[in-house]
């Protein structure tokens, strides 16, 4: 797990270590202060992460005491009668994220394979640039586009088509509003694709070319080479990339809030409006008029935090184990 030492890094501090250091040099005051300062600020990152958890637990303590574990199992969300249960939002988050991954993962792996195995050299940089460009678009702009382009399209073309062909399934029945779970998952898929693609591409790039050459030398076609050498070697990393995408999808707020319809109900139909943990906080936090209401929303935030931290932690460990700790920020 530690950073692989390159030869250049191995001779990092030749002067103090090679020569027998005099006491004065070893205890250089400036060095001590500077090192303590930077170390302290680095530790601040840990402190911020820990304090987010502490603050959320503290601010939802009344709600936690009032509802207990039942908060996670109850589907009652009625601020007027002071009844709060997170199940509709947990359900909405899980379903919209799962559907998003269902659409995004095959597309991302296909695109990453195109970039790493098929694309001519001159096309690689522009295409990966365009994919990354998708990641720089702010969430609220996806939401705006979703409201005025995707929702009308889903309402007048996609949903009627699905209802006509797959309408015997409970997922594609019921009133067609345009807003809803399906639309939210499509927006999420578009937003997650660049992350999954980029990490998967890193993972494919980390596959040693000897593996590819060995497969080709045995007479494999290009696809067989991918299937036998590239995919198995990158499997752990792909799982990590998918989980990174899942972390993004679960925490994504604005675009989802703008297209999901925001109704705290569990419905089998994907046409029906729903709500996610993030969207209910964005929608209702400013309107929460009494203590318990705010606390219940913060507790939803706490659940959201714990889920994303676990997913992100696992994802990082998986990706690091394949492509090293620098995989996401440096070109492989």
């Amino acid at each position, binding site marked *: 797990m530690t950073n692989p030492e390159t030869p250049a890094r191995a001779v990092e501090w030749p002067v103090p270590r090679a020569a027998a250091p005099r006491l004065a040099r070893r205890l250089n005051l400036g060095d001590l202060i500077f090192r303590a300062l930077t170390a302290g600020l680095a530790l601040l990152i840990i402190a911020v992460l820990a304090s987010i958890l502490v603050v959320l637990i503290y601010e939802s303590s009344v709600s936690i005491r009032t509802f207990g574990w039942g908060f996670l199992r109850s589907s009652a969300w009625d601020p007027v009668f002071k009844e709060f249960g997170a199940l509709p939002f947990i359900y909405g988050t899980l379903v919209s994220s799962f559907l998003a991954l269902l659409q995004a993962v095959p597309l991302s792996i296909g695109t990453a394979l195109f970039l790493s195995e098929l694309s001519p050299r001159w096309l690689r940089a522009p295409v990966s640039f365009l994919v990354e460009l998708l990641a720089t678009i702010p969430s609220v702009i996806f939401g705006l586009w979703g409201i005025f382009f995707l929702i009308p399209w889903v309402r007048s073309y996609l949903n009627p088509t699905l209802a006509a062909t797959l309408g015997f399934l409970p997922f594609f029945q019921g009133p067609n509003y345009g807003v809803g779970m399906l639309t939210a998952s499509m927006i999420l898929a578009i937003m997650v694709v660049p992350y999954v693609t*980029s990490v998967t591409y890193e993972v494919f790039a980390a596959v040693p070319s000897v593996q590819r050459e060995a497969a080709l030398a045995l007479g494999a076609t290009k696809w067989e080479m991918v299937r036998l050498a590239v995919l198995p070697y990158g499997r752990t990393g792909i799982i990590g990339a998918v989980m990174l995408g899942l972390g993004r999808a679960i925490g994504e707020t604005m675009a989802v809030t703008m297209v999901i319809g925001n109704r705290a109900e569990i419905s089998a139909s994907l046409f029906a409006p729903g709500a996610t943990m993030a969207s209910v906080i964005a929608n209702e936090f400013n309107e929460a008029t009494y203590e318990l209401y705010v606390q219940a929303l913060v507790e939803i935030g706490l659940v959201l935090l714990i889920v994303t931290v676990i997913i992100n932690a696992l994802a990082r460990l998986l990706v690091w184990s394949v492509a090293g700790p620098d995989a996401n920020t440096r070109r492989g």
Partner: protein
Amino acid sequence: MTTVSTRRRVVNVVAQAGAVACTVVVLVPLVLIFGYLLLKGCSSLSWSFFTQLPKPVGEVGGGMANAIVGTLTLVGLACSLGLPVGVLAGVFLGEYGGGRVAWVVRFCADVLAGVPSIVIGIYAYTLVVLPMHGFSAYAGGFALAVIMLPIVARTTEEMVKLVPSTLREASLALGVPTWRTTLWVVVRTARGGIITGIMLSVARVAGETAPLLFTAFGNQFWHQGLTGPISSLPVQIYTYAISPFDDWHRQAWAGALVLLLLVFLTSLAVRVVTRGQVRSVV
């Protein structure tokens, strides 16, 4: 002489065509979003958009001058809080980053980067808005700084690590203390890359909406000092987008176009300056 069977050849061609198709499908939404945004945004954009305050409902026209200034103010606050911490923490990770503590910091930074921005909004609300008894620019800036912190720290670490150790050795051999070597030689050499990382994080937080909803809140007028609510482009776009008024929708499109150009030009500048060595996906 062995021959590849027809079935294997067909599978090979189909699989490759599939990968190409995936790439095309991925790029279609990008084209649609940019096309629609340009179409709607350009027709709604006017000079008054940059110079006027929002008009009340029913009155046509007005602009988002306060939101543009607000976004710049919030990003400035976030930078003044998040950059010193982020850069120095990154220097620690790059220069003294071999041990177990640094591994934990690195890990926590990556996890922090994955914390949903709405949760960071609640965090800033509790730590800043509640004690100050009101929404404020400070609260919004604080939330954005927390989002910025891990991005800046990790990119700074990368850039510091790229500095050849011969430069450090040369400086140390001249008797320069380690801390001065780090600041005057290592950080100076990595300056370009560090600024790149900073610009990427700026591009990221400039478009953030969720953490501002209940920290900076929003404001239809010029903000009165930094202890009061302040408007920002993303929040203004959100408010206008979900409103039922056509004129406000037009304003939202114009705002989205301006915001996207702001974010996009920043990323593009980074891309051109570094020739693609630093990536925008963090």
